[in-house]
């Protein structure tokens, strides 16, 4: 137990009473990174100098009553979120030396809430991957077992939070990139409703699916972080004007009378028996707290994964067209003309998985194939959304596993590319439907690897989601387990 394990209120009380300083918190984070990050590779950039400088500034204001909600807390940022004057690489050679000239809206909000940024975190290149094996700067290792993947694409943030290198982290989720690594690393990951959190400054992968959200060690921290992140931003045209409730006060433990839908497709043959056991045990806990469990169906789960890969790759092929070596990013040397420059730059800058998805997307959108792939996938998306609409007419939340198994071995799923795509089967339907969902730790398998329970909510009903997750957490001890490092 370190000071980074203390509850947020406790930290703030101690800061107020001058029993603790922000500098101590930041040192604790930096020292932990020094101690364990050689083995994890969760960080791409550690900005110690500026973090310590900021800590000193904040310490001068520690006695003031009016403090930011995240005052003094060390936060890590996934490296696809733009940070002014701090390298933002997307774990790609294409942006290896790219230093943004602006902060993403979420970064501005974190700073306004007086959090301290520690550094930028490893990920699958351009957030494309489910295991963090696609980073151009090395794979991330799972803190529970270094031979296993941490999940992706936000492997760095999840591994770092599990290892207590930071208090919490910001990540992004397009088809499961927050929830899958949260499940594999035994931490809490929340993907907000599409439109709740500004995407301004998030390097776009698939714009109709991407959302930024928190990865934290418990549900309460997720509520605090979401409180700061949520809200309309005129700089994101898909940002929604909606009242932001008090997420923290929703954590009252009362789930009596709630109806929880459990999709039979999420508890079927493709799911590892141990994962199902843990989720069933979790459902029993919730039932004892007064919730009604009801079997429901998401009949398009199987086909949603293909729809997801067509849509996300199509949007990616368009979004990543901006990386042409002209205005920013790496530029290839010795090009004969502009076309040659584009091709050389992109071929040298992108890794194999990014190229594959750009190729799939380009093919899906190309003349003669558009109707067969992209248009059909968009229609499938409508069906996926309708499935959830039907369920939410009679359920408050939907619960199932986050992943089909626990963390797999590094290299185990890289032989056939589509094996890896199957990893997202339980998470990507949520992105297609724009819903909020989170993964919370619900125990371990016989090898000591964490299992994640996924809770899916109605659009913009993060309060209920957090309430259920919190009630579960308060009645179990899974979130207190820590990896031996």
């Amino acid at each position: 137990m370190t000071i980074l394990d203390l509850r947020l209120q406790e930290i703030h009380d101690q800061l107020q009473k001058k029993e603790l300083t922000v500098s101590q918190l930041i040192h604790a984070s930096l020292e932990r990174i020094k101690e364990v990050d050689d083995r994890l590779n969760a960080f791409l950039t550690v900005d110690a100098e500026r973090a310590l400088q900021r800590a000193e500034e904040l310490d001068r204001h520690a006695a003031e009553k009016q403090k930011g909600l995240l005052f003094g807390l060390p936060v890590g940022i996934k490296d696809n979120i733009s940070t002014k004057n701090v390298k933002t690489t997307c774990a790609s050679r294409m942006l290896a030396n790219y230093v943004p000239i602006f902060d993403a809206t979420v970064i501005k909000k974190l700073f306004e809430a007086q959090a301290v940024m520690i550094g930028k975190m490893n990920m699958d290149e351009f957030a494309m991957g489910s295991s963090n094996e696609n980073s151009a700067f090395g794979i991330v290792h799972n803190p529970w077992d270094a031979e296993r993947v941490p999940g992706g694409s936000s492997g760095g943030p999840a591994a770092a939070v599990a290892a207590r290198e930071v208090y919490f982290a910001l990540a992004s989720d397009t088809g499961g990139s927050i929830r899958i690594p949260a499940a594999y690393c035994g931490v809490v990951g929340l993907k907000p409703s599409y439109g709740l959190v500004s995407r301004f400054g998030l390097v776009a992968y698939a714009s109709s699916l991407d959302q930024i959200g928190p990865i934290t060690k418990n549900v309460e921290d997720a509520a605090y972080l979401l409180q700061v992140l949520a809200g309309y931003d005129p700089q994101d045209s898909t940002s929604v004007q909606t009242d932001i409730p008090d997420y923290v006060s929703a954590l009252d433990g009362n789930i009596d009378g709630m109806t929880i839908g459990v999709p039979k497709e999420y508890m079927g043959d493709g799911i590892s028996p141990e994962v199902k056991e843990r989720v069933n045990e979790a459902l029993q806990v919730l039932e004892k707290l007064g919730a009604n469990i009801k079997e429901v169906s998401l009949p398009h789960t199987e086909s949603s994964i293909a729809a997801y890969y067509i849509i996300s790759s199509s949007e990616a092929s368009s979004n990543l067209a901006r990386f042409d070596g002209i205005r920013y990013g790496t530029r290839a040397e010795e090009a004969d003309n502009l076309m040659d420059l584009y091709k050389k730059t992109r071929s040298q800058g992108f890794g194999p998985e990014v190229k594959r998805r750009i190729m799939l997307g380009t093919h899906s959108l190309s003349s003669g194939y558009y109707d067969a792939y992209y248009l059909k996938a968009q229609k499938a998306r409508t069906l996926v959304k309708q499935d959830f609409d039907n369920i939410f007419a009679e359920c408050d939340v939907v619960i199932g596993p986050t992943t089909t198994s626990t963390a797999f071995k590094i290299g185990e799923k890289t032989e056939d590319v589509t094996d890896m795509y199957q990893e997202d089967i339980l998470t990507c339907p949520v992105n297609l439907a724009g819903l909020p969902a989170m993964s919370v730790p619900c125990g371990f398998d016989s090898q000591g690897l964490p299992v994640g329970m996924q809770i899916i909510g109605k659009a913009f009903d993060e309060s209920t989601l957090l309430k259920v997750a919190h009630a579960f957490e308060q009645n179990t001890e899974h979130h207190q387990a820590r990896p031996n490092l």
Partner: protein
Amino acid sequence: MSELTKEQVEHVAHLARLELSEEEKKAFAKDMASILEFAQQVNTLDDELSRKQVAPMSNVLSIHNVFREDEVHESIPVEEALKNAADHKHQQVKVPSILEDE
């Protein structure tokens, strides 16, 4: 599904502005075939889609234009905007010749 022909791979790579090595072309012919076979799972929905006349959805939010007032805001200084360009001259980004000599 059989592998894609080398010409098909080259065509898509050109559209995507990628230059592939011979080795990559071989690997992509195989990978693309397996990914496209995977993607064809959406075809299992054909009957349902036509029976229910399902409309495509590009975004979960209702689509509407988002306008703002045409007010002057502070903009990025040119020097800042050029900071990440690989090459620039006279406050402009410098690129190789656009016209091909053929």
